[in-house]
């Protein structure tokens, strides 16, 4: 239902009065007629497809619903499969290789459940306000806090992007492809995807690439996992990891950072806005997010299971990097299995590179008020595309510099994501509870309990890491 919002003036802008009323019925309709952009027309076309699917499917609900769902899925699947990125798959592989089937399997399910809780909130924020996350933080909390938030995002995104290109390089090195060709080819792919000038096309191509995250499933099957042990681990959370407790804490933190990170909040909300989702699409947005969560969880567990043979054969995987897992698995999974893992690492890197560079570009456009949509042609939104490509090129270039501290970046990228998450979650919770912004779509009590619990768990994980680092004797390590 349409809602009125309390008004308040800012220096140079009129007050936003968000309603769910149609633009054509709004009192500003005549003013808007002459100001429509390419972005509006493309978005209207996407909305027409959804409206038509609803209209055609009104007689046979389930099939019509499926078509509507097909049109509305995207941001949720992309954000979760994008987060199953190169450093994340490395973390899952390390979990399996170091500790086998046990605690980490249900733990991954728990971390993805936490991911679903927070990402669902971004769907509602985007669909109701039609604003990106960075824009809302700057609007509601001001420049001071907004800049802190952006600093966390930019710093984390750049480090993660570097880690993605390391993954791309390492994945393709399994096939003897030189680093320059691997990284250059990945950059060309990022460029090719954004030259479509349409959000819809970009989303479908990226989803098509992202589904190859499932390559870890055949790799896991080649490892002949003990399904009874998997079931036992899921129910009992055991056996618990044993050994160096500081290392276990680091791996726990790294596994959390493989699932919940600040870029995901910014990306999904901006993608929901760019897709043109409306409050009536929130249910589909939830299903989209759940679908992404389930797919990513299954693929992550597959990555753990694929590397379990290394655990059973006592192979020390403590210092393994991306491609080394694939090479080390060849004796047990065969060359095909190793190739699947290597390709999976490559895919994880490339899809995340596309999503994360887009997330940076969205945030930049939202903060500086420049055009920020994949529905815009290059001439209308060149700063957006330059940031997107520039961040990807800078990260790719760093990966090719001889003796660059890449090991350092791989070590810290997931940990930094976890440590930067609590402030990001507090902003998210305040925004999604903001009555003026969200009206009837604001969080209910249960959602707030879940959101606060996730925030507290992340702070505790961070503090555990601090204790393990500064006072390892306290952990008995």
């Amino acid at each position: 239902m349409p809602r009125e919002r309390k008004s308040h003036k800012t220096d140079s802008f009129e007050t936003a009065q968000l309603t769910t009323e149609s633009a054509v019925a709004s009192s500003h309709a005549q003013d808007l007629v002459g100001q429509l952009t390419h972005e509006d027309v493309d978005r209207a076309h996407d909305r027409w497809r959804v409206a038509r699917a609803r209209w055609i499917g009104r007689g046979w609900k389930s099939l019509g619903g499926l078509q509507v769902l097909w049109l509305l899925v995207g941001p949720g699947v992309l954000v979760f499969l994008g987060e199953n990125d190169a450093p994340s798959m490395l973390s899952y592989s390390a979990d399996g290789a170091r500790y086998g089937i046990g605690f980490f399997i249900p733990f991954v399910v728990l971390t993805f459940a936490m991911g679903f809780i927070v990402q669902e909130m971004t769907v509602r924020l985007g669909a109701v306000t039609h604003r990106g996350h960075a824009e809302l933080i700057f609007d509601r909390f001001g420049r001071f806090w907004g800049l802190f938030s952006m600093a966390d995002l930019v710093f984390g995104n750049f480090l993660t992007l570097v880690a993605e290109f390391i993954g791309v390089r390492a994945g393709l090195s399994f096939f003897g492809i030189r680093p320059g060709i691997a990284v250059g080819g990945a950059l060309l792919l990022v460029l090719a995807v954004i030259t479509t000038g349409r959000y819809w096309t970009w989303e479908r191509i990226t989803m098509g690439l992202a589904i190859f995250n499932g390559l870890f499933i055949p790799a896991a099957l080649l490892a002949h996992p003990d399904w009874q042990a998997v079931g036992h681990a899921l129910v009992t959370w055991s056996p618990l990891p044993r050994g160096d407790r500081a290392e276990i804490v680091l791996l726990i933190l790294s596994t959390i950072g493989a699932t919940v990170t600040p870029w995901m909040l910014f990306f999904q909300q901006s993608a929901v806005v760019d897709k043109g989702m409306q409050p009536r699409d929130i249910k589909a947005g939830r299903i989209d997010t759940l679908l992404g969560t389930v797919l990513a969880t299954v693929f992550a567990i597959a990555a753990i299971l694929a590397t379990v043979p290394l655990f059973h054969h006592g192979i020390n995987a403590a210092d393994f990097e991306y491609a080394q897992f694939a090479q080390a698995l060849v004796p047990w999974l065969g060359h095909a299995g190793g190739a699947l893992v290597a390709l999976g690492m490559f895919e994880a890197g490339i899809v995340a590179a596309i999503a994360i560079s887009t997330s940076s570009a969205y945030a930049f456009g939202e903060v500086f008020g420049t055009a920020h949509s994949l529905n815009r042609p290059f001439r209308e939104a060149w700063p957006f595309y330059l940031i997107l490509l520039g961040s990807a090129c800078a990260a790719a270039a760093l990966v090719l510099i001889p003796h660059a501290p890449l090991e350092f970046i791989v070590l810290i990228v997931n940990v930094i994501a976890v440590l930067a998450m609590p402030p990001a979650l507090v902003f998210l919770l305040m925004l999604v509870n903001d009555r003026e912004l969200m009206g009837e779509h604001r969080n209910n009590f249960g959602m707030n309990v879940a959101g606060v619990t996730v925030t507290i768990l992340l702070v505790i994980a961070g503090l555990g890491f601090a204790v393990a680092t500064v006072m390892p004797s306290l952990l008995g390590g």
Partner: protein
Amino acid sequence: MKEEETKRWKQEAEIEQAVAAEARPDLRDPNVVLSLLEADQVVAAKTHTRFGRRKLSAGIRAMLWGLRIYVFVMLVIVLISVLRALHGAP
């Protein structure tokens, strides 16, 4: 008021359904474009409007500062941890 809203909502649904019924809408017609978008979804409407600042209570400001300090301290600890790892310290 409630009746007015319901009436408007129904009218808007009718407009959208009329466009949805067309096999190929004429998106060169601005009214067709506007009929498919919400009022605050149009780029021009968003460009000229902003949500105002919300007032932050002392408690919230203290929490935000606390979290900022938390992130800073944690980054220092990460640095220590990585330097140890890179130099092979126990």
